[in-house]
């Protein structure tokens, strides 16, 4: 395995909309710019597969801009360590590479939140975005009965997509209540484009029952999911399904910001007007600064790109647009906040940590993450708490612990190769 070293003026982590926008703006100023991204193509979760299709019209101009810019895209590359200021280590198809930067923009996106309920570990109970990604990569759901459940606008997009690809989507169960959603709808109405988007979505969804104030309480099946028990008000019933696609809104990916020492506020990366974090030369844009969706990600990415490139004037011109998008984001957060009843979703015997088979009852014996981790190994499996962490925070109120390298599982050799030239010679001595 060969190690490579590269050097950039502006390095961006994550090639979703925020990262793409940041790269486009930063490279306008003639700087050496690169994006590292763990997917084969730029686009992130939301635009996955959109680079080769015209199915996502709002993505096309950004792909064009990115292609026209001189920004390099290092695909299939995942940053896992921050060995020294101004440096990241990443695993890539060509081996480990050390990437140096003058400025760093973190656009690490968000992931779905899973809430455990009895049966959630059955095969074919799957993340809503995860099922969509599977279908995008060729997995067939033709004729399969699917229930989409949880919370957030993502459920609508996923349901529409699954249906378009032959899935028999039986129901969308949204835990949030109609009154909350209507208030959100009113907020949407003040933004013309949003209204058009949601109208288009509604057309695609025509005929799929959408129930608000409805959530899954159990999944049943022999060897794989066969039905889901849903609750709405005092009523519970079973809905037959081949797949249960679940996601309870989004949680930000803050592992890399934390590794770099960025401060969080209420779980999100703290940034100033120019998207700069509490660490000088490190910026952050998109979902890690607050779940706000596509438009906010794009405008934050542009501001961060300009600011990191030293063009504060260009950045400042986008502040008003960002303010508008932030209002939408705030409305979004209120509309899809999780209801209290969801705290009682898991039973005592329900696994909370599926990597290490830790039940809720075992966690309840402890008073904090650290004690629970040490005694039960909750969150210490291969996902490193990415799935159970947000669930535990919601269910038990425990805040996540510190982050250490590697932030993703990597080969032992990836960590063994991190030897600067000075320490290499002393190692040689030691090995005689």
């Amino acid at each position, binding site marked *: 395995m060969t190690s490579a070293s590269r050097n950039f003026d502006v390095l961006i982590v994550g090639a979703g909309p925020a990262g793409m926008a940041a790269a486009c703006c930063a490279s306008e100023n003639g700087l050496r710019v690169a994006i590292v991204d763990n997917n084969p193509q730029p686009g992130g979760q939301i635009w996955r597969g959109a680079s080769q299709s015209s199915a996502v019209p709002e993505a096309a101009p950004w792909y064009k801009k990115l292609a026209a810019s001189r920004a390099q895209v290092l695909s299939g590359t995942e940053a896992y*360590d921050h*060995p*020294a200021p101004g440096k990241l*280590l990443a695993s890539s198809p060509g081996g480990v590479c050390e990437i140096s930067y003058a400025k760093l923009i973190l656009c690490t996106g968000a992931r779905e939140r899973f809430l455990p309920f009895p049966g959630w570990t059955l095969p074919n109970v799957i993340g809503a975005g995860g099922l969509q990604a599977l279908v995008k990569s060729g997995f067939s759901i033709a004729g399969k009965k699917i229930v989409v459940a949880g919370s957030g606008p993502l459920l609508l997009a996923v349901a529409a997509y699954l249906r378009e690809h032959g899935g028999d989507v039986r129901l969308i169960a949204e835990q949030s209540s109609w009154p909350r959603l209507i208030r959100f709808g009113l907020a949407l109405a003040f933004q013309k484009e949003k209204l058009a988007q949601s109208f288009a979505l509604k057309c695609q969804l025509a005929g799929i029952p959408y129930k608000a104030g409805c959530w899954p309480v159990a999944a049943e099946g022999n060897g794989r999911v066969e039905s889901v028990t849903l609750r709405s008000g005092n009523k519970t019933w079973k809905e037959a399904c081949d797949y249960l696609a679940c996601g309870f809104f989004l949680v930000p990916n803050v592992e890399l910001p934390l590794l770099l020492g960025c401060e969080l506020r209420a779980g999100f990366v703290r940034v100033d007007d120019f998207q700069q974090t509490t660490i000088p030369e490190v910026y952050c844009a998109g979902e890690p600064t607050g779940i706000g969706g596509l438009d906010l990600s794009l405008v934050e990415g542009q501001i961060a790109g300009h600011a990191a490139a030293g063009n504060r004037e260009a950045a400042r011109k986008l502040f008003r647009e960002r303010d508008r998008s932030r209002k939408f984001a705030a409305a979004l957060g209120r509309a899809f906040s999780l209801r209290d009843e969801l705290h009682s979703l898991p039973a005592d015997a329900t696994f909370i940590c599926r990597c290490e088979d830790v039940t809720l009852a075992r966690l309840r014996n402890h008073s*904090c993450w*650290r*004690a629970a981790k*040490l*005694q039960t190994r909750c969150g*210490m*499996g*291969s996902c*490193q708490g990415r799935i159970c962490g947000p669930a535990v925070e919601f269910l038990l109120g425990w805040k996540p612990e*510190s982050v*250490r*390298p*590697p932030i993703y*599982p*990597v*080969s*032992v*050799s*990836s*960590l*063994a*190769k*991190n*030897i*600067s030239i000075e*320490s290499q010679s002393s*190692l040689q001595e*030691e*090995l005689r």
Partner: protein
Amino acid sequence: MSVASHDVIIIGAGIVGAACALACAREGLRVAIVEAETIGGGATAAGMGHLVVMDDSEAQFALTYFSQLLWQKLATDLPADVEFESCGTIWVAADEEELAAVKQKKVFYESRGVPAEILDAKSLHEAEPNLREGLPGGLLVPSDAVIYAPCAARFLVEQAQSRGAQLYLPAVVTEITADGVRINNGSTLSAHWIVNAAGSWSPSLTPGIEVKKRKGHLLITDRYPGYVKHQLVELGYLKSAHSFTSESVAFNVQPRRTGQMLIGSSRQFGVEGREINSAMLARMLSRAEDFLPGIANLSAIRSWTGFRAATPDKLPLIGPHSAREGGRDNLFLATGHEGLGITTSLGTAALLVDQLLERPSQIPVAPYLPSRARENVHA
């Protein structure tokens, strides 16, 4: 003067404090355990949980062997989550010179009643096929074992509690007073004896004791059941473990019941921060790859650091602080166990109780008395 609320206050619920608490409770003493954070959350959590008989000095051997026998006696009572495994240790020789040392090591162990078996190149390869080709051999010590120490500490605390011990958690001791301890919520506890078992934090409560923080890194892999079958330690380990000044790494790999492997070890003095030092981690893993080349391609899922409570002569401090100049006759120490606290916790607890109750011990206590430290440092 008011009546003491306890007979003995143990500061720290690491494995050493937990063992001391249980040993005291078994004697019918009224025990208070005061823990600042979580049970077994310090070096107990950071370390490997290797129960190992050491041969680097007679005193080290005596305490580790005595303790090992106590662990074996306790093994059947240990709950499943303690994951007691008699996997044995293989001390791996890297070259012919080290193979010669293997022979001396065997004689040392066997003459003291510890079975040990020399493995030649072929039998070493059969025992651990993933070790590098061409290693000349090693020494198998089958009676060594591994445990998951945080759960062992919790078990010992629970056993003590079932015999009446009181656990104060979370409670940070801010000061050791004339007749007890002051806690950060402003309250005080009083007792006949106070035992400082706070590991690498112990000098902050008892200034002047010669315990220094010695930082270590560890890494855990994903699950590869059977990839290694014994605790594997390079024979040169003692060379690095024995330097009181420099930074060092040594090959030390442990199989866990989950199929995961713990990879160590590193030693650094004078470093306070808990952060991972990527260069140190890299040196440590390169060393491990040198012995187990195939681990290069295995998945590493987590790394962490911890602090060993190290003493200049590598032996713990067990006994009264009073024998030291300016020491106190009701203050006892059970600290300074460096990388052997998991193994020696049970022996330490036995020696401590014998001293509290002024009765003879099964092994001589003199090498571990805090009073010896000053004379022996430069010996």
